[in-house]
């Protein structure tokens, strides 16, 4: 495929790139004290990158400790390049999500593409073959041409990289809000598969082993990218230099994946890491620090794309498609020849030492000599979290009653959150590798595992900035529950979570408070479901001149399905439509509040973990037993939207009678705890009732499937009308 037209949108770069020192006075003093001298210029640049928020998690490190990261199946939690979870039968999955928000704002095509490339190589670094991608996207409202171009460019970039490299993009989500106008969110998760006895690690050990550089050459791209990701976007300043934009080459990326897997197959790779943010410096220093060793790097041996590159440029370049391997000297030629056969460069650039130091030489002289662990352990920054005042929320409480529920349903169906995403996922190859049993389009995707038949994996990614704007704790927790609900609907048991925590500046105490609350919410929900968080990513400083983004924790969950062969019974006229789970719902943070009132609409529903866990277990079992034709969780847009989506999926109308409710708007469009709509063949209803009873889950019969009309509470809509509203994205992108 030729490179699609890249749609640039003229966002300006921040001026906060390290023209001067990008360290606080306190940090600089700490470095001097530790070294017993001032760092030289090259060393200082290394600290600036390694001690950036993006690389060092200065504000988040302490808080992230609250997440549950252990579990019987966890082979590797946070701390390595990606988490690893045991599947049994000799196989494990690698699971990781990353943000590429700022690069995508500046160059949507290349920013998103390199985000995909980067997360793929994190998974590869664990020794795994990447087998699936998910994308979670947020933009300003799509009536704005700039937001549409961002969407177009970002989807193009994900497609351009993911399709070419041959990893299917099997799911994702899209949401909009004016708060994302200047700062879109592009979060990509990657799943990998590895033999559980063949997991690679980012370690530089033993002393005497050599560092093998493999992949593409080093150019002047992306220097300071990590620092860039740690700054707010500023529209006032001029486009700075090209250094902040990295350009990916999926072709080189594909060759690097195959060559690396082949190299791993020799059994001679002792350590492995992607050169991502912070480039060679970060990869070498982290590998050394993890194993308590040191490294000596000779910059003269680094394969460069341009002549005359300075030490700083070579050390900190974020050129794409590069890996750093550790191997015994006698095995290096075998490994290097594999990479060369794939058309890549491979050269020894250094070796492992005992002394724990990060040493760099160039032109025969030493250009840097630092303790590796000092580079990788920036001091934490503490901010006292302060809850935001609730004045704003109170003031936004204009809530006129619902007049025309039919029009409202059509309106909700046409929102970017709910509408059909075909125009997006049809641009992604979601079938390559022939694993995709359930394709994108309706809930979680399902991949088969021919390595371990008849098992399979289910994947989903969910986040909700509106909920979190109202209540970061409840909103984050509910995102975890929603992800688990998506998995339950295909009969999958959660295995692991990876998350992307997208927030504005953590230096603002109120923002920091929302961050802490969101982490607590994820932690609580994951504990309640007994799912470990095996990795993730924090993206701060997501703000522009117009303000901050909504607090947006995004959760990606992978689950295990014991048998993917079982097809559900076919749906038919007269099937029952039932609701499993708590019937309560609220309008706070709902899509309805946004569309009807233009505000967040008050308090969020209260999450009830035990009830959610029971509902999920019940649905999972019902699906696995094949007693339901279709299961669909109620999320954005509430029950009415979920029912309309079921009608579309089944190609049938439905006659619905909702239980009496205080407020019609809340009954139709309220969003709440874990609730699942199911289509159940008449003959199977007793089975489902018995299961609900057994699991102590409320069950309400909502109506029956049939005809060409959806009728609920005064709403009367033909299937075609529903479909037309829902297919709206095609006219936008």
């Amino acid at each position, binding site marked *: 495929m030729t490179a699609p037209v890249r749609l640039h949108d003229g966002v300006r770069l921040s001026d906060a790139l390290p023209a001067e020192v990008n360290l606080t006075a306190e940090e600089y003093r700490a470095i001097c004290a530790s070294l017993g001298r001032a760092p030289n210029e090259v060393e200082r640049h290394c600290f600036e990158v390694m001690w950036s928020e993006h690389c060092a998690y200065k504000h988040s490190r302490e808080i992230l400790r609250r997440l549950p990261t252990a579990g019987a199946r966890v082979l590797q939690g946070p701390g390595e390049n990606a988490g690893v979870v045991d599947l049994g039968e000799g196989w494990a999955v690698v699971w990781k999500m990353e943000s590429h928000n700022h690069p995508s704002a500046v160059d949507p095509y290349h920013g998103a593409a390199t985000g995909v490339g980067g997360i793929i190589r994190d998974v590869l670094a664990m020794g795994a073959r990447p087998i699936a991608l998910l994308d979670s996207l947020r933009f300003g409202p799509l009536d704005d041409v700039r937001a549409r171009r961002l969407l177009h460019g970002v989807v193009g970039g994900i497609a351009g990289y993911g399709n*070419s490299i041959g990893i299917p993009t099997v799911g994702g989500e899209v949401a909009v809000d004016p708060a994302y106008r200047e700062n879109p969110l592009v979060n990509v998760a990657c799943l990998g598969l590895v033999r559980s006895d063949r997991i690679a690690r980012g370690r530089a050990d033993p002393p005497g082993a050599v560092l093998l550089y493999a992949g593409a050459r080093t150019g002047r791209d992306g220097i300071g990218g990590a620092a860039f990701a740690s700054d707010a976007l500023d529209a006032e300043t001029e486009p700075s230099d090209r250094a902040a934009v990295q350009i990916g080459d999926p072709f080189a990326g594909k060759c690097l994946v195959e060559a690396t897997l082949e190299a791993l197959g020799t059994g001679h790779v002792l350590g492995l890491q992607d050169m991502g943010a912070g480039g060679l410096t970060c990869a070498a220093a982290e590998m050394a620090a993890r194993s308590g060793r040191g490294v000596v790097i000779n910059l003269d041996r680094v394969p460069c794309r341009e002549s005359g590159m300075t030490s700083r440029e070579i050390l900190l370049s974020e050129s794409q498609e590069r890996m750093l391997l550790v191997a015994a000297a006698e095995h290096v030629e075998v490994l290097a020849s594999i990479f060369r056969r794939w058309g890549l460069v491979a050269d020894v650039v250094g070796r492992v030492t005992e002394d724990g130091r990060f040493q760099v030489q160039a032109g025969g002289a030493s250009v840097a000599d630092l303790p590796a662990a000092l580079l990788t352990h920036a001091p934490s920054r503490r901010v006292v979290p302060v809850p935001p005042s609730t004045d704003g929320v109170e003031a936004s409480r204009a809530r006129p009653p619902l007049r025309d529920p039919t029009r409202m349903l059509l309106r909700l169906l046409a929102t970017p959150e709910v509408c059909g995403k075909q125009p997006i996922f049809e641009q992604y190859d979601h079938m390559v590798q022939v694993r995709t049993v359930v394709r994108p389009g309706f809930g979680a995707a399902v991949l088969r595992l021919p390595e371990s038949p008849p098992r399979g994996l289910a994947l989903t990614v969910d986040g909700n900035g509106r909920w979190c704007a109202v209540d970061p704790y409840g909103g984050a927790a509910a995102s975890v529950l929603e992800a688990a609900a998506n998995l339950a609907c295909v009969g999958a048991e959660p295995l692991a979570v990876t998350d992307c925590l997208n927030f504005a500046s953590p230096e603002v105490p109120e923002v920091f408070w929302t961050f802490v609350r969101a982490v607590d919410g994820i932690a609580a929900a994951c504990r309640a479901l007994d799912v470990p968080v095996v990795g993730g990513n924090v993206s701060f400083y997501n703000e522009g001149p117009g303000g901050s983004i909504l607090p947006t924790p995004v959760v990606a969950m992978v689950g295990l399905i014991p048998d993917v062969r079982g097809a559900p019974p076919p749906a038919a006229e007269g099937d029952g439509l039932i609701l499993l789970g708590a019937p309560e719902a609220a309008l706070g943070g709902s899509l309805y509040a946004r569309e009807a009132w233009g505000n967040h609409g008050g308090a969020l529903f209260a999450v009830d973990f035990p009830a959610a866990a029971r509902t999920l277990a019940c649905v999972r079992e019902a699906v696995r037993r094949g007693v339901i034709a279709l299961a669909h969780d109620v999320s954005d847009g509430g029950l009415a939207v979920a029912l309309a989506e079921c009608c579309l999926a089944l190609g049938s109308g439905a006659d619905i009678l909702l239980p009496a409710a205080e407020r019609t708007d809340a009954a139709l469009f309220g969003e709440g705890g874990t609730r699942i709509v199911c289509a159940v063949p008449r003959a199977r209803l007793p089975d489902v009732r018995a299961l609900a009873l057994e699991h102590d889950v409320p069950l309400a019969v909502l109506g029956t499937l049939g005809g060409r009309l959806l009728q609920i509470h005064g709403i009367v809509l033909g299937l075609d009308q529903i479909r037309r509203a829902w297919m709206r994205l095609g006219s936008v992108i």
Partner: protein
Amino acid sequence: MIWGVVTFPGSNCDRDCVHVLRDVLAQDVREVWHEHRSLAGLDAVVLPGGFSYGDYLRAGAIAATAPVMVGVREAAHRGAVILGICNGFQILTEAGLLPGTLLPNRHFRFICRDVWVRVETTRTPFTRGLRVGDLLRMPIAHAEGRYMVPAEVRAQLEHQAQVVFRYVDARGRAVPSANPNGAVRAIAGVCNAQGNVVGLMPHPERCAESLMGSTDGRRLFESVAASVLTAMAGV
């Protein structure tokens, strides 16, 4: 019979093709690296989908210069069965082993979805076991699949039954809405004059197992296996 599946740098459906041939159809399969010049001993060769050499310049153009294409050309001349799927089809047209060319899709977008194609001729080994008019449901996944060929050549293709597959709707009609990429006369696959070299945009390897939603693709491979065995028996 012995199959070969070629891997170019950037191929990404090579493993899928090997899987279907070896694990699903129990065929004898050799993995062929793009630097091999000789394909002696192979009865059937698959050029798989993907983005060989990044598909830079034009899809398939750089791969067409690879050493293995010498072997592919020889194999084609000696009558071996050659199948180009998606990128493999693009490579075969770029190499001049199939007529026509594949241009960026009409809407200039990558498209991944199921389509219907109609079998237009049974003169190729891939369709010998099928009937003209048979409808197959197969996935496509490409950005450059708009088949184009000069009018004179096109008439000749139609006349000599070199159009193998056409995009149609679920009822077998070649209506514009069923043509996903704007291909001339809804052409989804063609063969050379001898009929032993076939290229098509849809991916039969992605629909060869019931778990994947359709087994229509499997029929193409089975048809080859049957016809090569027949030919061998005849010798």
